[in-house]
């Protein structure tokens, strides 16, 4: 009698057929059935309340009439939303910029950055501005955010979102992030949400699975190492640098952090948030990394039913 294929087996073979190279690579990172299952499951929608414009109480009261909401445990102003008959983007809260559609795990970097009003912040790869607007809300528009991106079309989206959220303390620049190294020890905080292979986004769009290839990952890893060194240079002693990606490849995450640790006095601090995560990988394909890398947050899709994400909190002694 032929064996009955389980749903997960069917999904696995589906994933393999779309991109066998991806499947082989990621089976070294997470070979569990749950990983495949959640990679192929549609992403839960989520949003963050923009405290620059309103307090959560009234917004939650109004949205609860039309949507089922569930608070995100690690972000006070973040909610998962389950749409019924209406779409979130068709609400006045969305169009007025009182809420911002943002993936739940991507709310972590701005929280971990630990900003205070009055600080000088560099958001090195800021577009489309979800984290920039989150940072501005924590700063209550006081202090300064240099919100940078390298490509003009992306800058337009960034400016539009800063407008919608009422961010008055951002200066938008269009530079190659690597050139920020020349502003040595100037910023209290630096966020490097690095350009990456967007594997975490597969749950939003399968095109990221189709276009993935290891050559691109290698190229991105090289760029990310240059960016993280420039980001660290721009950071003041005693400051915090957050390195994050929405991908799970070791080459784009742990290997990048290792490149910084091995050439500087940088230290890794643990991120203590109520989020299910696994430690950073310290041994991969026969290569051993600094043990401190265990302190990084590695979030796989099945951990919290979010997109895959990686966050490292890096301190500059001083």
């Amino acid at each position: 009698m032929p064996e009955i294929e389980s749903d997960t087996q069917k999904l696995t073979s589906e994933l393999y057929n779309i991109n066998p190279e991806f499947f082989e690579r990621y089976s070294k990172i997470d070979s569990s059935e749950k990983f495949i299952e959640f990679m192929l499951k549609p992403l839960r929608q989520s949003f963050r309340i923009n405290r620059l414009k309103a307090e959560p109480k009234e917004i939650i009261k109004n949205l609860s009439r039309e949507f089922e909401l569930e608070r995100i445990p690690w972000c006070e102003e973040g909610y998962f939303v389950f749409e019924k008959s209406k779409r979130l983007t068709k609400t006045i809260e969305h169009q007025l910029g009182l809420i911002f559609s943002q993936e739940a795990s991507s709310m972590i970097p701005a929280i971990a950055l630990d900003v205070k009003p009055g600080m000088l912040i560099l958001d090195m790869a800021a577009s489309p501005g979800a984290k920039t607007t989150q940072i501005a809300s924590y700063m209550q528009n006081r202090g300064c955010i240099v919100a940078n991106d390298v490509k003009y079309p992306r800058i337009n989206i960034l400016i539009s979102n800063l407008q919608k959220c009422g961010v008055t303390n951002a200066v938008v620049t269009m530079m190659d992030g690597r050139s920020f190294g020349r502003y040595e020890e100037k910023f209290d905080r630096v966020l490097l949400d690095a350009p990456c292979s967007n594997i975490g986004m597969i749950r939003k769009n399968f095109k990221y699975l189709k276009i993935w290839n290891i050559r691109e990952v290698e190229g991105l890893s090289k760029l990310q190492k240059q960016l993280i060194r420039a980001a660290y240079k721009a950071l003041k002693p005693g400051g915090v640098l957050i390195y994050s990606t929405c991908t799970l490849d070791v080459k784009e995450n742990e290997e990048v952090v290792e490149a910084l640790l091995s050439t500087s006095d940088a230290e890794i601090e643990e991120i203590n948030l109520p989020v299910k995560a696994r430690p950073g990988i310290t041994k991969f394909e026969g290569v051993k990394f600094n043990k401190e890398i265990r302190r990084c947050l590695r979030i796989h899709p099945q951990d919290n039913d979010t997109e895959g994400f990686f966050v490292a909190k890096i301190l500059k002694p001083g």
Partner: protein
Amino acid sequence: MKSDKDELRNHIKNMLREQFGVEEIDIDLNFKEMGKRRIYAYTNCGLELKFRRVSQGIYFGTIEGDGLRLSIEGSFLVGPMAKKNVVEISRYEAERWMMGEDLERDLERDLERDNLEVKNSRYVILKSGSYFLGCGRIKGNKIINFVPKNRRIL
């Protein structure tokens, strides 16, 4: 000697006081004029580093021939301090407004309730609960809509 920047700031502050009874803005805002009398607002963050800035601040409003017309964000920044010419609308009306529709109003009734001074200024801030929805212009018994297309509920 006062700079152009100070002059513009004072001019905007005077207009806010006259039109909406705003005595003080609770954030240290600066203004700059760009394009056709379009006013942008930004926080003075004391950034001394030299960058090629693509943009700074947000669109705050436009100085029209008959007054200052605030953007949605401008109304959020000054709305909480406004003491006159703020029209309270229902959730239903707010949804119609965000669809780009003009609102029919019994202005005789609203004159006292919303402290309207339609003789001095024809621009009013629209408010629903604690939400501010930008400015409208009073014309007869209508409030004319200025919600830009990219912000409308379609």
